């Protein structure tokens, strides 16, 4: 590397010629316009802190820590889906088999039961085929983050198109690609978390958890936090739980607009979802559970989150049912610390019921539960919660 003074000497010489060149049109090189270019696919990378995650969490982290190449990440995804599909009795060898055959009857019903991973791959294959047949009509939006000889572009919007293009290139036979992808290139200094948020929230299908991450990113940004260039754990987003809009009133409107024009109260509810445990966050994100079904879960201690969310998924509970379920769980769980000195009345009641449990039948209990809850799914969820409580109680007894 030349010494600084030497660089200046070169610049003086070249500068004198440059000034001659620029006479009459000094702005001819200062082109800061946003450009659309075809970029080599390998030069483009998804944003590791993008709230809307495409890959399942495990693959997301493996890919962003460079343990997997894009092709390997997709290969793992395909294998994951193959296992899930085989378990559901619809094995496939080629990803194209995932697409519904219009001649097959009952295909629409089947797609209703696709697992999140199956649905993801199905959507990616569908997108890949659209790109193959009609071309990439919508360019990706990327930020130029090149440094030195390392030329790299971080995706601001269009990660699904990125993965679909890889899928097309490496997993769909007979497609000849030049390995390029059209991109709108934004200079690094013009990159904006607000634009990304607007793009995200303007589209359908953004999960409540992705919205929560998005809210966190906006809050962290306006509070001066630096957004990392690597994949981050949920704790990074949880830092936003200690921040609020009041601290940065000048940004309140921009943030709420970027979040899709929501109200302040709803913003807080969305942000509060980050209180969910890691596992619960992943489950809720994968299954795209809505905020109204999750808001009651965050009121419970973290150790109950996953279980409740599983019940929401398994029994497709409504927000009202979740509210009732969580109210019940709150009673059970909130009083664990003082179990010895001041036993809750409810615990004493349950203990008495256990004494006479052999005096009733399973059928009677089921009917009673149905009468009480008015819904089979909610009744099952109640029993599952009870089973968990009994298992825990037994464990306490075993451990003395």
């Amino acid at each position: 590397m030349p010494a600084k003074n030497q660089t200046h000497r070169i610049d003086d010489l070249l500068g004198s010629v440059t000034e001659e060149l620029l006479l009459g049109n000094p702005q001819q090189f200062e082109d800061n316009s946003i450009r659309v270019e075809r970029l080599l696919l390998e030069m483009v990378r998804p944003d590791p802190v993008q709230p809307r995650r495409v890959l399942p969490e495990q693959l997301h982290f493996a890919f962003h820590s460079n343990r997997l190449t894009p092709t390997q990440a997709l290969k793992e995804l395909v294998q994951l889906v193959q296992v899930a599909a085989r378990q559901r009795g619809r094995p496939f060898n080629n990803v194209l088999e995932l697409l519904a055959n219009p001649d097959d009857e009952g295909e629409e019903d089947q797609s209703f039961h696709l697992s999140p991973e199956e649905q993801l791959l199905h959507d990616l294959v569908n997108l890949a085929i659209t790109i193959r047949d009609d071309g990439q009509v919508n360019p990706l939006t990327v930020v130029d983050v090149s440094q030195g000889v390392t030329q790299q572009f971080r995706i601001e919007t269009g990660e699904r198109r990125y993965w679909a293009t890889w899928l097309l290139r490496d997993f769909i036979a007979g497609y000849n690609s030049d390995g390029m992808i059209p991109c709108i290139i934004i200079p690094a200094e013009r990159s904006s978390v607000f634009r990304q948020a607007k793009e995200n929230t303007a589209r359908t299908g953004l999960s409540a958890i992705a919205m929560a991450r998005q809210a966190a990113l906006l809050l962290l940004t306006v509070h001066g936090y630096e957004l990392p260039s690597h994949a981050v754990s949920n704790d990074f987003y949880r830092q936003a739980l200690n921040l609020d809009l009041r601290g940065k009133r000048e940004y309140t409107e921009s943030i709420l607009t970027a979040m899709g024009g929501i109200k302040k109260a709803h913003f807080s509810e969305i942000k509060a979802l980050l209180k969910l445990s890691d596992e619960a966050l992943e489950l809720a994100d994968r299954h795209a559970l809505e905020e109204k079904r999750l808001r009651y879960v965050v009121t419970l201690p973290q150790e109950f989150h996953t279980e409740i969310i599983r019940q929401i998924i398994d029994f497709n509970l409504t927000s009202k049912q979740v509210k009732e379920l969580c109210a019940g769980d709150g009673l059970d769980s909130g009083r664990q610390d003082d179990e010895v000195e001041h036993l809750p009345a409810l615990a004493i009641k349950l203990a008495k019921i256990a004494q006479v449990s052999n005096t009733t039948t399973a059928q009677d209990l089921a009917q009673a539960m149905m009468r009480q809850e008015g819904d089979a799914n909610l009744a099952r969820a109640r029993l599952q919660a009870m089973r968990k409580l009994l298992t825990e109680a037994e464990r306490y007894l075993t451990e003395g």
Partner: protein
Amino acid sequence: MTRVFVFTNHKGGVGKSTSATNTALGIAGMLRRAGAPNARVLLIDTDSQAHATLVTTGKKDYGTDDSLYTVLMADRQNAAQTLLNCIVQSTWDADLHVLPASPMLEGAERELMGIAGAPYRLADPLSRIINRYAAIVIDTRPSFSLMTEMGLIAATDAIVPVEPRYLETVGLMSVIGKINDIREGWRQPNLRVSGILVTKMNTRIRGHNHLLDELKGHSVLGKLLLGVVPANEAVSYAHQNHQSIFNYDPKASASKAYAQFVGKLVQRIANGGA
């Protein structure tokens, strides 16, 4: 469209590498000075002697996995990524990137001979990353070999450096004719002879002056004259010290001549046309 300047002449010692390296650095410096958003320039060394590589990167021990040879031998699908992986930053300037040559290139010509599409093994991957650079400069070996053909096929502008003693119009016309043959033969309509750069000009030698006057007066070649670089010992010393002429002695007459020459190329980059 990114301009790709190839410095070519089948005669050795006419200043191809010196001109290519200093031009590449000069373009980067001028574009930066002019406030261009992208001032990156890629220098591609296709000469197995690797002089341009040595002076701009300080080393010449590039081999099978980090040089132009690697790119030429890569699978078609991976060639562009391989090209990106092989590019190194010059020690001269952060905006000057180098695709190094390797002595292995000598053998590459034999290995590639007869392989379908061999002449496009540089142009193809380069076309996929070309937008990332404001300009590309290719240094060629002193012959019209397969490697030089690859450089010409990848280029938009051929520049012929020439010593005054080789200035006879017949010799120059033959070089230009060869470039035209490649343009027609390989159907590269974007390739054109963009200029002649006279190097090592000694105004005290009457023959040099006479031949230069003759060149200027020629109906075709006269219009192609882009610059005259005087014979200057600063050029040799700069080369020996692995420095650019601008860096070694910015006040030298050769430095000023190269700066004027680079200025004309930068103007073409800015105008996008001739």
